[in-house]
């Protein structure tokens, strides 16, 4: 088990659970980061943050601080 911010670009993971709270949590769920979803880390911006994810057929950017609260497992 890892947090999403530890995953390197190019790797694919499956979401275990969210530990985020409030507006960010709801946004993440609405955007489809629900448990069991496959997420690929596409790349990181200059300075390594934010990161770009690929899931459910689209690209999403998320900051490391928010990714840190998403628990994932590697596949």
């Amino acid at each position: 088990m890892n947090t999403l911010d530890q995953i390197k670009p190019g790797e694919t993971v499956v979401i275990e659970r969210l530990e985020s709270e409030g507006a960010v949590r709801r946004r993440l769920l609405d955007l489809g980061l629900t448990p069991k979803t496959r997420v690929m880390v596409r790349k990181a911006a200059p300075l390594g943050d934010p990161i770009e994810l690929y899931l459910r057929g689209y690209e999403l950017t998320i900051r490391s601080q928010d990714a840190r609260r998403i628990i994932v497992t590697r596949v």
Partner: protein
Amino acid sequence: MRIALIGNQNSGKTTLFNILTGANQRVGNFPGVTVEQKLGNLIGAKNVFVIDLPGIYSLSPFTREEVVSRDFLLKEKPDGIINIVDATNIERNLYLTMQLLELNIPMVVAINMMDEMTGAGGSIDVHRLGEMFGVPVAPISAAKNEGIELLTDMIVRCVKNRRTPTHVDFYSGAVRRTLYSAARLIEAHAAAAGIPARFAASKIIEGGDPLPERLNLTENEMDILRHTINKMERETDARSDAALADARYEYIKKVCSESVHKIRETRGQIRSVAIDGILTHRILSLPIFLCVMFLVFWLSFNIVGKFLSSLLAEAISYLTLTVNGALIAMDVNPVMRSLAVDGALRGIGGILAFLPAIAALFFFLSILEDSGYMARVAFVMDRFLRGIGLSGRSFVPLLIGFGCSVPAIMASRTLGSERDKRMTISLIPFISCSAKLPIYAVFIAAFFPAHSAFVMLGLYVAGILLGILYGFLMNKTTYMGKSAPFLMELPPYRVPSAKSARRLIWMKSKDFISRVFTIILLTSIAVWFLRTFDFRLNMTADSGQSMLAVVGKRVAPLFTPLGFTDWRAPTALIVGFTAKEAVVSSLIVLLGEERLTDIFTPLSAASFLIFTLLYTPCAAAVAAAKRELGSAAAALKLVIFQTCTAYAAAMVFYQLARVLC
């Protein structure tokens, strides 16, 4: 009949709205271009109105756009909904569809961008999809104007027959049980409050929503609900909001597996990944961005601007001379001739020449937006903007500010938090808008022709650097706290449509020309009048005796520390509050036969440029800021702050330079 157009951000709602109503709304390839609802009349149907709502991902109440759309759907109760869904990104788009179905309003799902989908060898069984959701589905392509007639037919028929979505069982197990029992329990309350029971039930289960408070539930009922929800959480081993989101996405997956046939990623998506390999590259992305911005300005000002503008300037001066000659030949009263030539023609002529450069700048900025590059810039710049407590999203209004502060201030509405919005609006005045270009260009041509590019660049960069410094200070004082969460979709790159670009150039040119012939013309004539007559309304031979001079000379000493010794400099600055171009037009009118070099030294000219770079935004921008900030006091503070900053910066520069030079 009122029909709401609703869908995810960047799903093509505004493109569809423009086709349905023949309107000319601005579209872009950036999530959240539409910031307020717009109403239009459906072409060919007198009594049918279409309302374009801001794009949302969900009906939860966490962002401003969501609140706007939700309130509209719940309180205004439109007669029908067109839910626009992006075929190339169907899973996430259908998540909103599932929530809209709970509202029990007649609805048609329009699957947009079908051309891209079929182009990639994919297909969608719209009948099966409609069956599984209980609503009619129309495949369309808004960009290519395909399938629109069928869609309008469907929605009008749906509304006329009051055909609400057929009830379909989406969920199973614990989630289904909980939703049903909650809906049944609150049914009477929901009916009394005018809220659909299924919708209210799902909001109660998700939690964190103020809506259930409107239901007036008893303590006992709330207990039962809590108990049911707890039980569901134990059974699903997830928090209720996650369990419900998961159940929705599970059903969507099932629908897609039965109705959507996707061979591979669309061509656009593959291309996007390839382009992103370069444009958002970890090391290359920043230099590329700087090159792109340099190219935008260089092309607008130097290539298009210089060539077309000088042609236009020659045409205008020829026209002025001809009119002057004709008026002399016709023996027209000299006062009237002076009004026409020295007041009107010279004033607007000095500005009109900048039309090509400004139209070109707007054109290039719109290409950045329409192509999808703007969203990448937000991604690349986020980390840097966090240094001053903002998110990458704020970068977009700031870039738009190079064109005009008014749309920039309006675009800041899409920023997630109130704090980010206020802070971004305070930073926009530091970005030189295109109306300041004539001022810079005229002064640089007169005083620094040898270093024109360097001085121009210096002004833009100085504004940006001071903005960064100000943002840094604000972040440490007034606007302490964290910026809004940065969760942004990166749309695929799209080739900007020629039609949209043509329309934009036309609209911006029309805007500019109409401003020249209203505000600039009026201020020019007013300035001419005030500088030609004295208080007894006698024409003065020397403008130094005129009304404007008498008043101007009172104000002028205030500006002596900045190096402006002539009363005409501060007068032009004050007139410039109506529109920044008016600084130049009124200076031209005020000077008459004199030249800029007669009243400025190179040093005081530089000080004047620094002052115009920073001082108060024009009246239209202040009005926009007042609207967005919600108070006249806040807008006034902006005016005072900017003017004081400008005064201080120009004075420090002038006094230091005088000592050093």
